[in-house]
């Protein structure tokens, strides 16, 4: 098993015990000036005075790189459904692991399908052209509109033909079976 525990041989080194410590230190050599205020950098520590903690609400997924829950967080759209399971799984890996992001991207795509299913479940057929801003395309890009409309028409027409063919195929096969 790997462990992050500091072993005795890895004890913190007292800088002043190192020969030559700081002899070339140059406070002017600060590439972060002016957007980082060095004077208020207390060195590596996490014990600032914390804001009051937001009370727990819906499920929050948390990066394993955090040592504790940040004081404030967003509560929009908690993880749900299959995409939610994928998202939970993703948070087993750190932000530096590709798998973490890959799973989240996968969950995002799945979530789109869930969104459409949910819409239909509530009796809403999502108006895809409107959601994609077709009115702006119509008003300001007639050529693009025509190409898109023609493509959509061709795809829809093709689908209908395909379905009909399949339908008559299976009907024919059934006919033979009978």
């Amino acid at each position, binding site marked *: 098993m790997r462990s992050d525990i500091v072993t005795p041989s890895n004890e913190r080194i007292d800088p002043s015990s190192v020969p030559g410590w700081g002899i070339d230190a140059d406070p002017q050599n600060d*590439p972060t000036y002016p*957007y980082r205020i060095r004077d208020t950098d207390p060195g590596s520590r996490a014990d*600032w*005075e914390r804001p009051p903690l937001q009370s727990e609400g819906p499920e929050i997924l948390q990066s394993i790189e955090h040592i504790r829950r940040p*004081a404030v967080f967003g509560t929009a759209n908690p993880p749900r459904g299959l995409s939610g399971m994928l998202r939970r799984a993703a948070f087993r890996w750190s932000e530096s692991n590709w798998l973490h992001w890959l799973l*989240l991207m996968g969950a995002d795509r799945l979530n789109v399908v869930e969104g459409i299913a949910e819409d239909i479940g509530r009796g809403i057929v999502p108006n895809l052209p409107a959601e994609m801003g077709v*009115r702006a*395309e119509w008003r300001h890009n007639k050529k693009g509109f025509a190409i898109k409309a023609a493509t959509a028409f061709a795809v829809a027409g093709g689908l209908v033909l395909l379905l009909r063919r399949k339908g008559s195929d299976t009907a024919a096969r059934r006919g033979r079976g009978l």
Partner: protein
Amino acid sequence: MRAMDYRGPYRVRITEKPMPRIEHPRDAIVRVTRSCICGSDLHLYHGMVPDTRVGTTFGHEFCGVVEELGEEVSNLEVGDHVLVPFNIACGQCHFCQQGLFGNCHESNPQATAVGGIFGYSHTAGGYDGGQAEYVRVPYADVGPVVMPDWMDPDDAVLLTDVVPTGYQAAEMAGIQRGDTVLIFGAGPIGIMAARCAWLFGAGRVIVIDHLEYRLEFARSYGPAEVYSFKELNDVVTFMKKTTDGLGADVAIDAVGGDAKGNMLQTLFGTKLKLEAGNAIPLHWAINSVKKGGIVSVVGVYGPTGNIVPIGNVVNKGLTIRANQASVKRLLPRLIEHVRSGHIEPRKLITHRVALDDVADAYHLFAAKLDGCIKPVLVPSQA
């Protein structure tokens, strides 16, 4: 209340959502009077940002009227008209203490590499954004600034992101008097960076894009020399030629991962998503800046990684500086610049769209139709 509702890549609509409520003693509820769509929103809209959940409301550039205050917010009053920085920052943590309000450690559980941002996916904290009638504003005692009487709300809404980001892009470039500044991207951010480069003493400002109408805008607003990368055989070679063979002193990436202009990068970054967006602006910036030069990056890329010529960064001895803008840190100075007229933000606004027509506004801005530079959404009750 009515709010923008993300349904999947290229699909948004307006939906009735529950009113936001105070969830923390330092929260405020703000009734939105203006909100903008940003180039950053396009990364979300195109499905490039991991953990962008269906049902989320985007919008990190907004101003509005304080409707309700948590018990610990004493510097604001109900009825104040405020502009709200896009960063959600506690003001106290290790990073906020150093002025790094774009890197707060107390506002985003889902990731450590980025602080909380309004309406910017769960990777940036899972907050609903301001493209809505109302919005929850956490740490309302830190971010929001009451708009002075003289300020136009159209200027105010651009002070929440565009102006500070353009300004910080120039600031991070470490521009010295007389420097040649090369800016990639003639969107609102690149245009503002061009304007601000002069304030830092630039000697030449050059802007690269491929949209003629935006280049024209940058040419007069910056002002700037402008070139279309479509008409240049090779951007880098051209830059060398126009700088006595040396390269620009500094280069600014104001494009980010939705860049165009290179087949391989488009394939890997945009289509296959094997890298976190198309990184060609970084290539061009790194390769056209002079040895020992500085590359300042405000263009947004995803969290996984990009193909960039890091070997050239080493061999040329470059300095790369990058960040999310620290809006609150810069506001006092920038409000002065707006008051004095050195920066005129609202000239960037080309389209004013009713919040209800949010889907059209997204498409218009994403497809760069009708000469769009910056669209602002206005809720009907605002």
